[in-house]
């Protein structure tokens, strides 16, 4: 399951980042690393991009990028 499959307001834990090149490095630098947890907050009008919360801040991704991030669903965010 990828980050793109998580429903609005759903919580997730990152399993792996499957991107390559610049996008992968950007994602990792911004904290998309194995084990990091977050919440999908909302999507834009045409369902793309999406906004999510990660490590206590907000970030937006396009669906195509979110689909490169493998995640698992978790029930709730714990700090």
């Amino acid at each position: 399951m990828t980050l793109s499959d998580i429903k609005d307001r759903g919580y997730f834990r990152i399993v792996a980042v499957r991107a390559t090149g610049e996008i992968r490095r950007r994602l990792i630098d911004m904290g998309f690393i194995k084990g990091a947890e977050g919440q999908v907050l909302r999507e834009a009008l045409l369902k793309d991009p999406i906004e999510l919360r990660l490590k206590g801040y907000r970030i937006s991704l396009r669906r195509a990028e979110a689909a490169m991030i493998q995640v698992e669903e978790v029930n709730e965010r714990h700090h």
Partner: protein
Amino acid sequence: MRAFGNKIKIKEDVKTIRIALAGNPNSGKTSLFNALTGQVQHVGNYPGVTVEKKIGRIRYKGKILEFVDLPGTYSLTAFSIEEIVTRDYVLQEKPDVVIDVIDSTNLERNLYLCLQFQELGVPVIGALNMTDEAENLGIHIDEKQLGRILGIPFVKTIGTRGSGKEMLLDTALQVAEGEIISTARHLNYGLELESQHYRLIDVLKTDPEFGKKYALHWMAIKLMENDREALKKIASEHSNADLVLQQGEIVRSWIEKHFGEDSEVVVCEQRYAYIHGACREVVKHDSGSERIDFTEMVDKVVLNRYLGLIIFFGIMFLIYHLTFNLGNPLSDGIDRFFVWLQDVLVTFLPAGIFRDFLVEGIIGGVGGVLVFFPIVLLLFLGLSFLEDTGYMARAAFVMDKFMHLFGLHGRSFIPMMVSTGCAVPGIMSARTLVNPKDRVLTIFISPLMMCGAKTPVIAMLAAAFFPEHAGTVFWSLWFFGWLLALSIAKLFRHVIYRGEVSPFVMELPPYRMPTIRGVITHVWEKSWAYVKKAGTFILAASVIIWFVLSFPKPHHIYEQHEQAQQQLDSQLQSVAAEENSELLIQNIQDKKDSLDAALAERELKYGMGGRFGQFIEPVFRTCGFDWRMDIALFAGIAAKEVIISTMGIVYGIGETNVERENGNITLKEKLENDPRYNPRKILAFMIFVLIYVPCMATLAVVKKELGSWKYPLFMAGYTLVLAWILAASVYQISRVLGIGG
């Protein structure tokens, strides 16, 4: 740096301590920089790139402190210009202290950059900024403990209020004097990684010269991360480059096998793991009831799927109107002032080349620069406010999908919209695009919009040749500009940047109240940079165009003209003595005027520009243009509105009579009644005016923004070809179909 140091005289005996200010975007770095340096700032560029470099100096406790504002970055990889600039600055200039400004509400991600500065082996101080905000959110940081873990001093600050400033300066002094050790404290990235790391350092050490230049600890980490810039440095500068690079490969494959993941990922994960551990020890969150998340509350409305779009367009509408409704009268005022100045000089200076040069070349040019100033100023007032509140990122979020369909970025919308007023501030506002490809693409297409200067030209022609449908024709062209810009963007994305997707990954910062000072500083810097940089070029170009249009002079006809004028003058004198001669006087006066106008027409035709227009006539005949239109288009490169006044001269009615409605024939009527022109030709002409070569103010700004002449040259080239193709198609197709003849 050093070049700058020469400009300000400093007594030799006073030591200058150089401090670099770094940090994530939205960490409040700029306001802290302002608080530390006061108003004494100098804005320049980093060598070779168009990234802005701000320097401020202060005297503190008998020392001179020189602050350099490094660009805001999230990391120190080699993917963006900002990151490379930051990295190279620290590596090459070796500042005495790096202050890393950290958003305390977002400690983990901000410390990630801090760690990378430590890896570089420079003395680092962490400024835990926006402490007040963090406290309000119930985040308490034990900065002493954090300092003990990471091995560098941390100071709590509030940049907007300047609190913590003294403490920060004192700490910086202590670090610079070596009283606090704040360098190269080794970070532990796990036992396995460490042993590999040391293997690499050992190989790197084989070249002692290289070791003096770069922090080997850092180079070893970059080798593990497979960083292309660092590898390049090793390949070209290390005496045992082959051995080092080979060892790097061995280590990377070892890590990959051992961790089951890319070495690059492993290193980053270790950094975050290290930070996570540190934060668990030093950060206390208030337990108990959930706090009200203000940003989330606002986002619920502002980023609501449907409301978000309405709010976005509402805000854009407001900014657009604020800029152009308030700015245009101011611009007109400046314009009127320069026209007045020209009139005064014409009255008081003797006629001749020098007067023409001063009046039309210099004053015309300076006026052309300053006319944009109020619009640039007001626009950046609005945009800085949006940027500082945190809305700009939301605007990009709302518009991204639509813009992405055309290969653009959500942030491309604002430059395009602004360009419908004026492409100069539009192109400047493309700075919000972080990715260089997105930015270049957006800049390329923005001048295709109908701008404030093309509007009077196209509106006048539409009214003259499509009297029944003037509005429809005008607005169709307006939308055509948008459509064309988006289609060209799509085309360029496929042709020039084929297959390259730039990441959208974008932080949505918390909403914050901008400080008045912050906004004003922003606005002033940007507007002034425009006047200084673009201004000099616009001035030069306006002198050149004036020269090309005015020389050589048709000396052989002057005598004849003088005689004719004198004849009329004497007629005037004899008539003036008679009674009831107003009508006659008016008649003679009109004759004089039309003589002058005819002279102006012949002068223009005789000059280089005029000859050029006649020379290239065959090329544009396919579009239905004659040489008169060609000259007007050529002059229009100076500024699009000049097309009308040039046509006025070319059609022998004098440039000032273009809009005169009483008595004399206007340009509009003249064109309407001229059998050589028909709606078909004029439609092709309007399309050409909409698309062809951006005005030189725009070209100058593109050069300034992108740093190389190849960009404006390319833009001038492609728009000219595109304009020709479309105008020719419209003209030829309508001719074949027999429309508008």
